[in-house]
């Protein structure tokens, strides 16, 4: 009896339009996801193609900045022992007060175990000499700001203690050291009294294409409380931009699923409205309210299932056809939308859930109206 009733329901004129209603909404979500996947894939490729950088920092795992990072000073030896590394310096940074004729300035002191290597790595231009023990180099911006020149003596106050250091050169690197005082690590350690730890280790690779392998080997030799961070984070940037797009599309898709709930409500209401005769016939044949309710539910869910499958196909084929047309007209060879299996499953399940939610109330009300006399 029930199979006969289903046949009657599915042969109704409204079934096709109900499937189309659901399918169009699913196609919309699918097509947008396909296009976003394509854009994200392109961004990822660009991110991977871009030079990942050959320079890295080793800092404490829990540090969010260099000044709150403290790592064992001996780590530099492990880095320098690695034959794949071309340059490595350990550095300590701290703040001190610089007293000049222009007034007091809070300045950053950078202690480097090899000042020459550090400044040369930054494509140094130096007016004077590179600092040695108990000497310092002043960055060009700081020198202009505080009116400092070669052979001047710096009056530095750290933790209430005054230290005097001679300026032997004014440096320009077009980096942060242009606003800092750079000196040998041992000189800074004498000022701070901390000779056990440094803030970070900076190192570069001989062959950046081997970065993954070299970093893997290096990390094995490092203590667990440190992390290695690449300086040029193209992939991270691209990934974050991609995530923003995905989150935006997901938030937007929520609106579609809400409309899908409404669509399912309309499909179920229309079925009840247009199939009063069939349901009354079923009731006359002895069908209980529960059966009528289940039938409406199954009908809507089957319509939703077919709609989802049609919509998914339509979305994928539609976006790919549109992409082919764009390629054909404008010659954009990068446009190749696609949908991943897990995304298809997600769209299918969410659309199905939305359809289920939407049809419950009209199915219940319809059952009440049609089968009022029979107990559930």
């Amino acid at each position, binding site marked *: 009896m029930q199979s006969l009733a289903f046949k009657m329901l599915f042969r109704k004129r409204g079934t096709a339009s109900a499937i189309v209603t659901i399918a169009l909404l699913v196609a919309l979500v699918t097509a947008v996801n396909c296009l976003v996947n394509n854009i994200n894939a392109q961004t990822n490729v660009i991110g991977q193609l871009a030079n990942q950088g050959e320079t890295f920092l080793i800092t404490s795992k829990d540090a969010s900045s260099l000044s709150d990072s403290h790592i064992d000073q001996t780590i530099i030896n492990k880095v320098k022992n690695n034959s794949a590394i071309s340059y490595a310096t350990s550095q300590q940074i701290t703040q001190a007060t610089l007293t000049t004729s222009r007034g007091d300035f809070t300045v950053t002191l950078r202690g480097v175990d090899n000042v020459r290597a550090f400044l040369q790595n930054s494509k140094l231009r130096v007016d004077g000499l590179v600092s040695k023990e108990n000497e310092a180099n002043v960055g060009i911006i700081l020198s202009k700001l505080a009116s400092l020149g070669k052979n001047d003596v710096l009056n530095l106050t750290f933790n209430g203690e005054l230290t005097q250091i001679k300026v032997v050169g004014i440096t320009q690197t077009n980096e942060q050291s242009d*606003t800092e005082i750079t000196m040998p690590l041992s000189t800074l350690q004498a000022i701070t009294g901390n000779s056990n730890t440094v803030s970070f280790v900076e190192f570069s690779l001989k062959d950046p294409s081997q970065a993954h392998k070299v970093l893997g080997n290096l990390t094995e030799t490092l203590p667990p409380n440190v992390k290695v961070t690449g300086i040029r984070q193209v992939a991270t940037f691209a990934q974050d931009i991609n995530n923003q797009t995905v989150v935006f599309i997901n938030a937007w898709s929520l609106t579609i699923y809400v409309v899908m709930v*409404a669509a399912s409500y309309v499909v179920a209401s229309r079925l009840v409205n247009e199939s009063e005769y069939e349901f009354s016939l079923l009731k006359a044949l002895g069908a209980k309210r529960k059966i009528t309710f289940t039938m409406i539910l199954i009908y809507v869910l089957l319509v939703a299932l077919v709609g989802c499958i049609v919509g998914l196909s339509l979305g994928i084929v539609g976006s790919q056809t549109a992409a082919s047309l764009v390629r054909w007209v404008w010659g954009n060879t990068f446009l190749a939308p696609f949908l991943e299996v897990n995304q298809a499953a997600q769209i299918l399940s969410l659309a199905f859930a939305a359809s289920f939610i939407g049809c419950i109330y009209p199915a219940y009300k319809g059952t009440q109206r049609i089968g009022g006399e029979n107990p559930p």
Partner: protein
Amino acid sequence: MSLLKTRYLRRKRVLTLLVILTLTSTLFSVTAYSFLGFYNGFTNYAGEESDIIAVYSKTGGTPFSGIIPLSVADRVTAVEGVVAVSPEAIAPSTINDQSVFIRGVIPQDLNALNQLTILQGKSISFNNTDSCIVGKSLADRLQVNVGDNILAFSILSKRYVELQVVGVFQSGSSLNDEAIVPLYVGQWLRGISYDQVTLVRAQIDTSQTNSNLIYTEIANKTASSPAPSVTPSPTQKNDVQKQMEALIPLAQGNIKVGDIGIEESQQFMASYLDRYGISKDTLVILSVVVLVFASATAISAITLFVRQHSSDIDIIRAIGVSSRKIKTDLIVKMVIWSLIATALGTAVSAAVITAFQGLGYLQVLSHTIVFQLDPVVVAANFILLSVLIGLNIARMEFKQ
């Protein structure tokens, strides 16, 4: 045209139809306002007022990748009718594994163009070498406060900087999603020398000058002195520029007039989107396509609504009312409902976008999408719903 005086439409069904029309309208509005929010945010990036112009490099593929000589700022300053000039170095970077745009500026010059309200801490000056101020949205996203140190890694160069957050600001522009640093810090991160910037923005007195006049003046002056010296410059300078020149080591900077463009800031940003076929019109059309896809739901709901009232309509037909009159009556009533649905849909979409924005879900290119009411979208929404209703009712056939 006279409407039927009989009340043959049930209130509960009317309400249901209104809800479905509102949902359809909401979908259209959310789509359109999100897309336009992105478009407006992007095109307003360099300034939304018509008196703000941008001097940029024509060779840059994006607004962030072009490079122009800093001496252009001096040239622009010297033009009569230019009120304020802000040379800027914009650097895409990462902080705590999140994408961030860091803008190097001369703070006093930026303030002349964009008023920043300091919410916490203080503003920065050109001399604050290791400091930055962050926009409210960015501070929330990065979860940073005044006094925190942040480590920024550049994307376009092999550089990093540690900065202390000295202030959190609020602005009526996309600066809310950015960090502001002294110009030279932006130049480090962008990987350019001290005599280069990515953009020069200027506020002009539109009654005295325009972008074409400024371009012509720069071209004429450059032709008469092909290799201008940045320091000392023959052009007039304000105190801030003098202060900057005293601090930054500036070298000779050649201006290749053919490589620079000067446009109203919104047009300048819109031209980048145009290259990828994105315009306000195409985004509205895309939103209309979304509505077309969702229209089947509205059509089904309208059909259902009429069928639910078929017995009432049959009775009205039986007493001699023409089918045309009933259709007109239904269309007029439904068009009024579509007007209500448009208003409700717009209100709901504003609430949804604002809520999503508050949760940090609406970001494109690390800039927050902001809801901005657009009369074109409201009108398009109402017209499309009305057309949908009109066509659907017109094709219906009532029993004789």
